């Protein structure tokens, strides 16, 4: 199937008078319609910047974007702001971590959704309002008719997140970008939003790029996982493969750090050190300074993407050479 999102060698730099931050350093991936890609990484790994580049949200004067981004047949990098406005919402939409800052505080939820529909589809306000009501029902907001007239501050966190999802889906986009949409929520609400997103994604056949720092959330939503470190994908593969049999030392370290099945009170196998300074990246493998398997050659050249299986890619010289295998994590769903 032809990919609905195609990214080729994406690079994003932010320049300030003092320094240049190399936020994304050569990311390539294809996403087929109806599939969910989970981008897993820690803060500063470039996962949110990648997402913003996909929808053309990076500030044009301060950021420098290279590479090709094609979304639903549109070349995002070549489009003007006016052209982007036509594509946003109808082809590609985004949901954010903080609905309170993503929604407009001075308009009701209903007005915000109806405005979007009128703007993109040219229907009457009454029709748009009816669609807005339908959308709130789709995202399972109780007493939807009353909630349409609520301002964002009148809703709870979980409800606002549902309203933002309704807004994003209002013009039936073929690609949904989700930037940590469950991170700010309580755990019992988080799982509701995850289950809802998964259900909507399947019903509407959307492609989703889901950014998260939480391995558990990625395991719940993603078909494929890309592990991001210092602006590069260091490992990509089916969710099951990446979580059960990680190949890259960083992926394994990240899984070990999530205190899964770790014996109570015993030391964790933590990754030493801190993420690299994105203004001054090492020439070789960015993870080498923290990697316990690193050798001299790891710091010389950037490891190429190596396919371990047709759908499992890793960027590590030593894994590619078959010299190391990292330990698979113990998976233990808490007995309930």
């Amino acid at each position, binding site marked *: 199937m032809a990919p609905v999102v195609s990214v080729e060698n994406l690079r994003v730099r932010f320049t300030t008078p003092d320094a240049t931050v190399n936020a994304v350093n050569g990311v390539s991936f294809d996403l087929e319609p109806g599939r969910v890609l989970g981008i897993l990484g*820690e*803060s500063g790994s470039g996962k949110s910047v990648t997402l913003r580049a996909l929808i053309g949200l990076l500030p044009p004067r301060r950021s420098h974007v290279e590479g090709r981004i094609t979304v639903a047949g549109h070349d995002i990098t070549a489009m003007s702001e006016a052209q982007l406005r036509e594509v946003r919402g109808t082809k590609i939409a985004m949901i954010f971590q903080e609905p309170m800052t993503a929604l407009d505080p001075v308009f009701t939820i209903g007005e915000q959704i109806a405005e979007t529909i009128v703007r993109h589809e040219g229907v009457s306000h009454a029709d748009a309002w009816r669609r807005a009501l339908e959308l709130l029902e789709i995202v399972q907001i*109780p007493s939807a008719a009353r909630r349409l007239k609520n301002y964002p501050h009148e809703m*709870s*966190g*979980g*409800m606002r997140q549902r309203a933002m999802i309704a807004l994003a889906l209002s013009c039936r986009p073929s690609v949904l970008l989700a930037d940590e949409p469950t991170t700010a929520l*309580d*755990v*019992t*609400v*988080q*799982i*509701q939003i*995850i*289950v809802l997103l*998964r259900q909507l994604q399947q019903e509407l056949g959307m492609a989703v790029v889901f950014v998260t*720092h*939480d*391995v*558990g*959330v990625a*395991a*719940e939503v*993603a078909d494929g996982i890309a592990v991001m470190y210092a602006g590069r994908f260091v490992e990509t593969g*089916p*969710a*099951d493969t990446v*979580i059960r049999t990680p190949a890259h030392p960083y992926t394994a*370290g*990240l899984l*070990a*750090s*999530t*205190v*899964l099945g*770790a014996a*109570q*009170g*015993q*030391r*964790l*196998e*933590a*990754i*030493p050190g*801190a*993420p690299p300074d994105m203004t001054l990246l090492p020439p070789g493998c960015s993870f080498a300074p923290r990697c316990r398997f690193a050798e001299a050659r790891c710091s010389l050249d950037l490891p190429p993407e190596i396919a371990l299986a047709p759908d499992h890619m890793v960027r590590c010289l030593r894994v590619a050479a078959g010299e190391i295998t990292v330990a698979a994590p113990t*998976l*233990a*769903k*808490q*007995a*309930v």
Partner: protein
Amino acid sequence: MTALLSVEGLTKHFPVRGGLLNRAKAVVQAVDDVSFEVAVGETLGIVGESGCGKSTTARLLMHLVPLDRGTIAFDGKSIGAREDLSHRDLHRQMQMVFQDSYASLNPRLPVSMSIAFGPLVHGVAKPAALARAMDLLQAVGLDPLLFANRYPHELSGGQRQRINVARALALEPRLVILDEAVSALDKSIEAQVLNLLIDLKEGFDLTYVFISHDLNVVRFISDRVMVMYLGKVVELGPVGQIYRDPKHPYTKALLGAMPSMDPRRRTKEAPLSGDPPNPINPPSGCRFRTRCQFAEAVCAAVPPTLATDGDGRAVACHMLMPGSGHSLA
């Protein structure tokens, strides 16, 4: 088991003011009749969702906010009106680490001075206090030569949290309250700080009260766990028992809501619907009843009491109290 800290009937209601004369319109029942003990050398984990009162509990323990009712005894000495133990003495024995590592450090002090500040206030001579700060920097894994004269903005989040831990230890406390102390850190850094906390606990003979919303972390670090919901304790017991065999419907739902970590066994259905209710005017009777699938008339009428079984586990649920009037009791 000797109790280092025992808390009895802890209650804090915050008035919500507003209107013409700024009168109290409602109260937030942040913490309501909470009792527990922390044994010497153990780690008590407190879990719950936002608004459950876990952070207010921590602040009450530290006397950062005055309590409405209840007693707190530290090492057998009560802290209160006619105190056995003054607040000054209490703070020598009990220290706290907060979630926001940046906001809890003075931006104008080099970190060694931040660490030495407590001992200086408590009358330790400056050279001795600074020497101790150097030792503590070493103990939390930061090279004193490199870090002593840095300011908070020059450090990463993980390093700042190490400084906060060092500062908490500067007065040689016996109990440290960690309020979401690792929650703002990235996973790889979180694991490092958790390892540090385990090492320090052993090295300095500490007792921890560990507050977090992260159920994995609490399971990892705690000996016993206390589950709170809207200002009440719903379940309290040894960590293994709680995670293996939760009794309270809320504890079950909370654990069932954790992401599965296994793409082959995804969560099919969310165990609870809706958000936690507002702690202003919480539901009558059992506060969980509005989201509980087993709720019956008795749950709205009578608040369940925390009843202890033989194994050191306590649960507040009518279903587990014979004769409560609940059909499943």
